[in-house]
Structure formats: C-alpha cells, structure tokens
C-alpha cells in the first residue's frame, strides 16, 4: 500500500484553533455599521383568515425604521413548490406563519414594536393529521395552487412511485410474509448555533447576504428571483458565509426569515440582521418530517427476499420545502438495501396545518430504514432464521445492479455486518432474552454525490503564490464536518506539499466557483475529486516549468515535501529544486507567469428518470450498526451497553474527522431512537427548549465503537465515499431490534420511550396470562 504524506492521517481540523479560542465569527457575532435589527411576528392561530392588520402604532414607536406585512410588500413566491411567501396575506396556515416584521435600531425596540402590531383573525378549522387531511371535506390548506388555479385536495402533486420487477411473482414466491406499520415523528436539528442572517444592499441595489446557508449558489439563485420579484431584475446576490454553527440539513432551503431580512433591508437601505432565539429555533425552524410507513416484505423458504412493498404517508405541513423530496432518498434503501427483486413503493405528501418539515441528516433514509430493518427482523423471526444470517443471505454484493438501476461498484456491507457481529459476539449474545439483547441494522446511502439537481458539480480554482503556498478556492461549505481540512490534505498530497501549505478560500459566491451545496454526504467526495483534478493541472504546469531547470522531462519529475526532484535520481541535490524558488523564478522572469488552474468536477451519476430509476450516485456507502441493550423490565428504561458502527467509507481520508462524523451521527441517531421528539399539539410545538427537547447529554453515555471498512472505490478521491449522514441511519432500527431481543416487545413508533416499552411489556404479560388461563 502506498504511504501517503497527508491523506489518511489524523490531521486536526484547520479551523480548530480559531474555534477553541473563541475567535471564530458566527452570524451571532457579526455586526455591520448602521445595522438594524429585524424581528418577526408569527401567527397566533394554526389556521385563520387575516381580517385586518394595523401597524400604525408600531410604526410610530421611536427607533422603528420599518414595519412590513404581506400587504405592503411585493408578491414573492418562495419554497420548493413556490407555495410560500415571506409575509402572509389573506390567510395563515400554521403557527410558523410570518405575519409582520419590524426593523429597529435595537432588538428590544423591534421586540416592543411587535407587541404594538394589531392583527385581527378569523379562526378556521385546522387539520393536523395527514390521514384526516386526505379525506373529503377536510379543510383545504391551500385553496389555490401557486399558479392561482383552485386546489381540490391537500395531497401534494408530488407523487412518488417506484415499481421494479413483478410484485405478483414476488408475492407468489414468498413462503413468509410480514406486514406492519411504523411511525416516525418530528425531530429537530438542534444546531448549537442559532439561525440568522444579515442582508445589505449596495447603492446599485445588489444584495449581500451574510449567511449560514449550506447551499450558497442555490440560495443566490433563489434570492436573485426574489430581487426580480421586487422589481430589481438583473441585480445580483453575493452570499458570504460566516462560520456555521452546525447544519445537518437545516440550511438546505432558503428560509422565510432571510427573505424578510432582504425586504427590511431594501425598505430601510440599511443592513438588517435577524437572529433567532432558541425558542424560535424550535418553533419556527422546520424539523425532520414525520411519516407513517406501511411495509410488507416476503421471503422464500431459504430466507431470500422475494418482494418488498412500501407505502409512505408524509405530513408535509403547511408549505413545501426541499424536504418534500426526501421520498426520493427513501427510495435508496427501499430499492437497494439487500437484494430484493420485486419492489413497489409509493409515497404521498399531504398538506396539514402543522409546521412544515425540511431535510435532516439522512434525508428520509433514517425514516425508511427504521421501518425496513424492523420489518426485516420480524420476517426473519417468522422464517425461523437468525437476523444476522437472514441479512447475510440477502446481502448486497459489489458489481450488482439494483432494481432501481443503481450500479454498485464497491460494497463493504458483508464485512460491516461480520465485524459488527464479531464485536457483539453475536452467536452468544443473540436470543438470550432476560433483559439483555442485541440488534443489528444495515444502511445504504449515496456515497458519490446525488444528482437531485441538474448539476451535481463542484467548481474549483487553485493558485500558487511566490512562497509555495496554494490557495484552494472552493464552493464547498464547511459546516463543522471538516471538508476544509480534507481538501487541504488531498491538495497537499497531489502536489507534494504539506497540509499547512494549503489555504482553503471559501464562503463567498463572488469569489468561489459554483457548487450545488453541502448535502447528500457529497462534499468530501466532490470537492476532493475537484481538488485532485485541479491540482493535477497545477502539477503539470510546475513539472513542465521545472523540467527546463532540472534537465529532465516533466514525466520524469515529481514533487515531495515541497521539493521537485527527478524520480530516477531522487537523492541527488544537484537535480532538485525547491518549489517556491521555481515559482519566484517563473514569476519574475521576462514574460513571467503565475501558476493557477481551475476544474469543474461533475460526478458521473444520473438523475432519476420518469420511473424514478437511474444511477443516482456514482458509488454507494454501506454500513451496519450493532447494539447491545439492557432493558429494565420494571421501568422500561434502556441502557446501551455496546454500540458498534461499521462503515464502508471507501478510504478514510482523515480517520479522526471520520470518526467524529460517526460518533456524532450515532449519538444523534440514538436520540432519534430513544429520546428526541418535538411534541406537537394542534400544530404547536410544546417543547421549545433544551430542557424539554431531550437531546442527549454527555452523561447519556453511548459507547460508540467505529469500525472502518475500506474497499477503495475507483471513483472516489483516493477511494473515499461520503460518510456525513450514514451514521445516524441504522441507529433506531438496531436499537429497536435489540430491545425486542432483550424483552420480546417491538416498538414501532419513535421515539422508543420507557413508557411505550412498559406498556408493551404489560400488554404482553396480560396476553400471556390470558392464554395461560384459556389453555388451563
């Protein structure tokens, strides 16, 4: 194996020093001269007509610079289906609805002004359950579609339908079948950094947004459309990213508060900052969407899966974000986790008066995998096959083409399962009952980008300075995951430099080339591939220039540790040249030149076709999680005794950062399984604080042991695949399966609380007594 100088090493994050000293500047920390503070007035009903808004008192409060409502702003349609507007007119459809906004010289005055806005409502009946929302006569959330045509139903015109193979054949071939329903609920991203932005117009009416978006270039597009709607057609938006206090998918949409800041800034001609409070974050930042998932799977006598049927019902909430496309990623495990020849999958999203949802780490995959992997254990039990063995009989293989036409290149699933089973000592641990049990679940996720947008590309520019330092100008957004660091490592590796020679320039759409965004676990994959290609062009230029000085052809030269040398004569000091010397020589000679290069890397993956088939990603990440739990039968309390997280990552570019992703995802996934839930009553989030939203603390010890499996993938940068999201995908089903193994009850709705377990245990005991008395 080649020994790398930079790649594969546990190099600390390049931004860690700024962060541990408190010098990193988040949106919270940023102030501009003359800046005003914006505050938003939200709806006081989940569904109501707006009869009248009186802003006169608010406007006359000293210090207030602007008060906006849906009635004094231009019509701007926003959101994935263009069904939302920055400030509401006519009707409010959920508690989150923004009714008015204020800009004032300080936040207290803005807050006080909100109290002075008088809104008269006429309450309308609300619908908070997607099943009820589909029924005839249910209140229509949107009476008209975005084009103004009358709507007839709350069902979104986003039908997801994947049919593979032949279901009749699959069902006929099944010796065992299990049907069941699973439910997952709203959970919040809980980024520790609060949301906010600053909007500022220049004298030419071009907009600068100081932003925490994960998708700067799509945001630029969105905001430019908004500018056009404001009568500023042809004006441009510059997005400047501050340091971002966590993403997890929460910044994949452009959000209403950002449009409000833009409108306030345009109105006042001043920079306007809007910062959320934590309560606003919980109440008004869209969470992960809830779903009701019906799964039927069947297998033959030998435990080979013959078919899989999934029907998903999603509560879309009142508006549509990019999160409404998560059913497309739910397809990934549904079609391609294990070998299933015949598949039927439909998903429906329904408008309700609940808060609308958005993307969150895994993009639908955690929801779907929870249902699939729980159902798989049930099927294995019915077939009388050990759950691990059952999975092995259906395990994915390298080289296969899945029913959805995914081309599986490398696949480390088998190894992941084996290693997790070894860790748990599966054969001895499984089936003991008595309050201790083990459970396992697998995952597949996109590992080589995902073409959910017409381009999945990443642009990059590199330039060398006079001192051998290289600037890597990238569209990648660092949200804490460490893309900046691995980019530096990869660039240094290709160019024979040290990681500290690389300066990653990011977060400014005026400077950085286009990238579709930090999502789909794609950033390391695409940006590092772009870096390899750009750096190769740089290296070619260096070697061509050096060949004149070293008397050897470019292909006979290489660079190592900042030194250019002849590969056949590496130790000869006469035939070496320090890179920075060469650069200065080239720069200051007659007709001097600079060394720079650009590359646009667009991975070889496909958009799904009309049948939702196609090779969505150019490689796929696999993994398996195995847990051992102890369940207190008297209280329903669950303790995680062991947690193995095996991941097929292609290659670990930086094992320390990779483990960080796995640890964080595993603990987030465990929270999803056991403790986290936004409690929503009549559309209202009832637990809008960290005391009542049970994110796990350091004392909730989850002993995660990462296992790295490295089937180097030829399309990946140095063989790497994406791994940002996968870790949180199999946690919940693995834990649910372990609980079943421990105490024989299966909880099918998340989170698996102590109460639910105890209720199930009591029901089971009652049933046992009954059957005893009947038989006796």
């Amino acid at each position, binding site marked *: 194996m080649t020994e790398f100088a930079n790649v594969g090493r546990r190099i600390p994050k390049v931004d860690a020093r700024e962060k*541990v*000293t408190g010098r990193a500047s988040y949106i*919270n920390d940023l102030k501009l001269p003359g800046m005003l503070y914006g505050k938003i007035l939200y709806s006081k009903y989940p569904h109501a007509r707006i009869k009248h808004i009186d802003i006169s008192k608010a406007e006359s409060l000293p210090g207030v610079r602007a008060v906006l409502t849906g009635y004094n702003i231009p019509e701007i349609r926003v959101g994935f289906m263009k069904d939302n507007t920055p400030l509401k007119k006519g009707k409010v459809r959920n508690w989150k609805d923004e009714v008015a906004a204020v800009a004032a010289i300080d936040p207290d005055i803005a807050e006080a002004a909100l109290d002075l806005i008088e809104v008269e409502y006429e309450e309308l009946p609300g619908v908070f359950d997607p099943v009820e929302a589909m029924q005839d006569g249910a209140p229509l959330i949107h009476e008209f579609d975005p084009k103004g045509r009358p709507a007839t139903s709350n069902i979104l015109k986003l039908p997801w339908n994947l049919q593979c193979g032949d279901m009749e054949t699959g069902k006929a071939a099944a010796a065992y079948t299990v049907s069941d329903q699973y439910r997952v609920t709203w959970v919040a*991203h809980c980024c520790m950094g*609060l949301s906010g932005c600053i909007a500022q117009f220049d004298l030419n009416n071009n907009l600068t947004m100081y932003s925490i978006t994960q998708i700067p270039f799509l945001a630029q597009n969105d905001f430019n459309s908004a500018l056009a709607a404001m009568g500023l057609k042809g004006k441009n938006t510059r997005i400047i990213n501050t340091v971002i206090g966590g993403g997890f998918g929460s910044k994949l949409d452009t959000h209403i508060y950002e449009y409000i800041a833009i409108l306030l800034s345009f109105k006042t001609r001043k920079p306007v900052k809007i910062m959320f409070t934590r309560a606003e974050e919980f109440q008004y930042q869209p969470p992960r969407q809830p779903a009701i998932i019906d799964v039927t799977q069947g297998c033959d006598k030998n435990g080979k899966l013959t078919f899989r049927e999934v029907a998903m019902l999603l509560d879309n909430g009142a508006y549509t974000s990019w999160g409404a496309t998560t059913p497309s990623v739910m397809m990934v495990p549904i079609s391609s986790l294990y070998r299933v020849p015949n598949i039927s999958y439909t998903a429906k999203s329904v408008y309700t008066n609940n808060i609308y949802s958005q993307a969150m780490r895994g993009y639908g995959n955690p929801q779907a995998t929870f249902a699939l992997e729980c159902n798989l254990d049930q099927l294995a039990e019915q077939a009388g096959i050990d759950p691990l063995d059952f999975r092995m009989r259906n395990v994915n293989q390298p080289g296969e083409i899945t029913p959805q036409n995914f081309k599986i290149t490398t696949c480390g699933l088998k190894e992941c399962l084996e290693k997790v089973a070894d860790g748990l000592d599966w054969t001895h641990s499984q089936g003991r009952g008595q309050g201790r049990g083990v459970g396992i679940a697998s995952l597949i996720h996109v590992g080589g980008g995902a073409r959910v947008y017409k381009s999945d590309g990443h642009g990059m520019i590199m330039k060398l300075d006079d001192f051998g330092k290289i600037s890597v100008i990238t569209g990648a957004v660092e949200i804490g*995951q460490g893309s900046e660091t691995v980019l530096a490592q990869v660039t240094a590796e290709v160019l024979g430099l040290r990681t500290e020679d690389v300066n990653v320039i990011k977060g400014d759409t005026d400077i950085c080339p286009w990238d579709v965004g930090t999502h789909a676990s794609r950033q390391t994959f695409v940006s590092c591939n772009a870096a390899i290609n750009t750096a190769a062009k740089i290296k070619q230029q260096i070697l061509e220039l050096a060949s004149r000085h070293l008397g050897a052809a470019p292909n006979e030269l290489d660079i190592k540790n900042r030194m250019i040398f002849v590969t056949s004569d590496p130790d000869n000091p006469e035939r070496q040249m320090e890179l920075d010397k060469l650069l200065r020589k080239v720069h200051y000679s007659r007709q001097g030149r600079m060394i720079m290069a650009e590359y646009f890397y667009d991975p070889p993956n496909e958009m799904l076709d009309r049948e939702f088939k196609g090779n969505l990603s150019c490689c796929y990440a696999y993994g398996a999680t195995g847990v051992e739990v102890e369940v207190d039968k008297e209280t329903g309390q669950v303790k995680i005794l062991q947690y193995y997280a095996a991941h097929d990552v292609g290659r670990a570019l930086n094992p320390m950062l990779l483990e*960080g992703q796995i640890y964080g995802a595993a603990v987030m996934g465990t929270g999803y399984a056991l403790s986290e839930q936004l409690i929503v009553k009549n559309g209202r989030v009832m637990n809008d604080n960290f005391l009542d939203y049970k994110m796990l603390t350091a004392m909730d*010890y989850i002993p995660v042991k990462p296992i790295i499996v490295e089937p180097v993938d030829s399309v990946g940068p140095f063989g790497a695949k994406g791994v940002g999201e996968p870790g949180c995908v199999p946690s919940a089903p693995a834990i649910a399966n372990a609980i079943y193994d421990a105490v024989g009850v299966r909880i099918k709705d998340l989170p698996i609380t102590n109460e639910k377990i105890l209720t199930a245990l009591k029901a089971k005991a009652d049933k046992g007594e009954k059957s005893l008395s009947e038989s006796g």
Partner: protein
Amino acid sequence: MKKEIFFTLNGKLVNAEVDVSRTLLDVLREQFELTGTKEGCGVGECGACTVLINGLSINSCLMPILEVESADVVTVEGLADEQGRLDPVQEAFIQHGAVQCGFCTPGMVMSAKALLMENPHPTEDQIRAGIAGNLCRCTGYIQIVEAIKAVTEPTRD
C-alpha cells in the same frame, strides 16, 4: 438604570457602565466585544455561555451583571497566555478532534477547565458529569471526553 462596576476580566481590572438589567453574557459580548462566549439558548440549558467566576463555571446568561462586581471573570479569550500559547485544554481539543462546528466549543473548554482545576485527574464519569451542562450536536461528546482525558495524562515525550 445604569451603574458603574469594576471587576477582573481575563486577569485585568476593568470597569464598565452597565445597564443593571443585563446579564454578564450581554455585557461581555456587547460592551467588551468578547464574542467567544456564545449564546445558544439564553436560559441556562445549553452551556455555550459558560465562563469562570472566581474559578467556578457558571452560565453567564443567567448571571446578573451587578453580581460580578469585584469578581474574577475568565472567558475563553483569557485562556491563552500573552504570547498566544493555548491552554493545554485548548490544545487537546484541537489534537483530538473535539471540535466540529465549534459553537459549543468555548463553553465546553471552560467547563473542562473548571473541572480540571478542581480535579486534575477525573475519571471518565467525572468528566462526563463535568460537561453534562454543555450540549453538543456534532461530536457525540466522545472526542471531547478523549481530549479532556488526554490533558490529565502525563505527556509522552
């Protein structure tokens, strides 16, 4: 109502005219422009605003500013020495991957510092109890615990 107060901030005697209804967090961030101390919830539930007062860790968002009169306040900006050499806790956080998005980091570092000042050789359980008031969404806490453990061990050179 405004009042002038004096206290020690990161080793230096400072004074400020403060609105008495502000918290220490407000004054640190707005008047002293020490934005390393973060506001993550404002109600003592996340720990991002942790600072040391007279050697004890507290949530600065819940500390009325007048209560720091004559006190010794240390923020994350006060950990490195004059030459910019970082505190061993900060170095360990860097070296062990304990930092991702970094928003919880200053508060986490301050809690770790308070813990180690009181107990230089904590067990893993004591470390976890020591940082239980600092929420982190990125790391799952594991590399943070490793970093703090590393500070307690003698350096290997």
